[in-house]
């Protein structure tokens, strides 16, 4: 890989990011129920009040105008005010990002640990049917709804991070195990074993290291996966994080929050993928 495309990507990233925000705004704006507020159904309110509640959302109906003013505010660090929670979006994010980061971070760490272990185990101890066991376990967990996993962990009073790890594990395991199987079939692994190299060394140096590029690419994708998993987990377990906020705002069509979250997701996704590519580039240069 040459450096030119990477440079181009880094340069175009902010534009792409802004585009993501705009597309998000448009999607949300044209979703049904955008302009409604649950309070409208409250029969205790007078017609004037309902009219004024309706009015509140009127200025957000033109997506272009709204997005322009939003990005204008963005420059000064102002993300607007949540229309369902009535608090500045910046405050909401500040409170909630660390919560989700912890959940997703530990979840990813755990999931990666288990997925790698499950992918490496059949390689280290071939012939015990471990591969069947791990892929069945992966399949089993994959077919349990994330909500059910969350509930199981709640019933057991086990940490939510572990639930995140369990939900993420099968999604990572499949790729991990495929990549590692692929690498372990390469002659150099066989030769390393024939040299009498210690199993740990075989696993780390001869299998894991060459599999690194694919694993890093997956790591980039896994970050956005983790964000996706956080939504059901946080909603069910009532973790006051980004995922819960996303769900609540989606239900309330809370445009300022949702656009901010779209931008946040886009930033995470894009930087993760870019970081993966940059790492690959750096590694590629070494070999």
């Amino acid at each position: 890989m040459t450096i030119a495309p990477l440079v181009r990507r880094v340069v175009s990233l902010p534009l792409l990011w802004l585009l993501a925000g705009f597309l998000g705004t448009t999607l949300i704006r044209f979703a049904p129920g955008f302009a409604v507020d649950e309070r409208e159904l409250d029969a205790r309110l007078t017609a004037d009040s309902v009219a004024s509640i309706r009015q509140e959302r009127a200025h957000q109906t033109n997506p272009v105008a709204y997005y322009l003013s939003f990005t204008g505010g963005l420059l000064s660090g102002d993300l607007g005010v949540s229309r369902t929670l009535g608090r500045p979006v910046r405050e909401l994010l500040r409170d909630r990002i660390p919560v989700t980061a912890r959940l997703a971070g530990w979840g990813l760490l755990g999931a990666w640990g288990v997925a790698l272990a499950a992918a490496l185990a059949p390689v280290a101890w071939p012939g015990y049917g471990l591969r069947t066991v791990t892929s069945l376990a992966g399949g089993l967990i994959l077919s349990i709804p994330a909500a059910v996993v969350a509930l199981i962990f709640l019933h057991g009073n086990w940490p939510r991070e572990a639930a995140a790890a369990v939900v993420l594990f099968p999604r990572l395991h499949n790729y991990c195990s495929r990549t590692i199987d692929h690498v372990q079939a390469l002659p150099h692994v066989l030769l390393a074993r024939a040299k009498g190299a210690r199993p740990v060394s075989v696993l780390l140096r001869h299998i894991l290291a060459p599999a690194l590029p694919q694993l890093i690419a997956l790591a980039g994708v896994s970050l956005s996966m983790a964000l996706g998993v956080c939504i059901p987990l946080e909603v069910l377990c009532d973790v006051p994080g980004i995922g819960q906020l996303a769900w609540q705002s989606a239900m309330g069509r809370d445009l300022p929050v949702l656009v901010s979250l779209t931008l946040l997701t886009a930033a995470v996704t894009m930087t993760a993928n870019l970081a993966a590519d940059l790492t690959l580039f750096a590694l590629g240069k070494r070999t």
Partner: protein
Amino acid sequence: MRTRSLCPPPWRNRAGDSLMNSLLHLRISAGYTGRPAVLDGLDLSIERGEILALVGQSGSGKSSLALAALKLLGYKGGWVRGEVWFEGVDLMKLSERDMRCYRGRRISLVLQSPASSLNPWLKLGTQFREAWVAHRPEEASLWRCHAEEALEWVDLPADFLNRRPGQVSLGQAQRVLIAMAILHKPALLIADEPTSALDVITQAGILQLFARLNQQLKTAILYISHDLLSVASLAHRVAILEQGKVVDSGGVDEIFLYPAHPFTRRLIAALPNISWADSLGGLMKGLRVVDSEATMENGPAFAVKDPFAVKDPTVTASRPDLDSTIGIL
């Protein structure tokens, strides 16, 4: 970390074992789960200091045999049953941990594809070091010295240790692999089609190298190939593998000039006709063994034990025009 002393001295004979006299005696069946056996009651032995060529069609189980001897077939999703006697020990009964003491130390392996047999992520030096430390952890610091010595054996300069696999040519890579294989001066070197990926000139160099190792280090070599020409020039003995069994075996001359088994005959007949057989004979004759270091360097490309240290006169008689062929060569 385990120390070496925990490994049983593998070369100690166990008295009373009929199979202990051979360096390696295989009596195995092997295969891959869910498919018919690849090796089926195979019986093969190799003596100390001998070069045994194993010949067979592709798919006849040659490579499986190489892996089975090292008990590595499991890593390829295969199984082995039977006995693998090496220096009086049945390797099949050893634990994976004990087995590791043999791999690379007493039995080494060289594979067909030098390019992919080296871990592209590690410097050659690192890979040498690993090979050394795996068996001599107590002398870890001496790895460089031994690696350089091994490289010298294969005519490569010491600065190769600083290179990465991507920075060496195919032939050089194969030499590196061989150097790594002889690092511990093993009793047996299994070479699974080591030259098939190389050009003719490089091939010749590698074969020459094998011959020299055999002679000077007294390393027995199990040379697996379907390249009859190289087999003829290198091996002392040939075993023919067909459908998982050794169907024919004997000295090189016996097999090539008087193939007995129908399959062997077919194999030989498949060689490009008379001219091929002629050149084969010529080759065998011409490349008389050159023993001295001097000839190694200046002499012909092949260094082979003379297959024509003949007992049977008919052999020469039936090939009257051999001398002229030598001229051509």
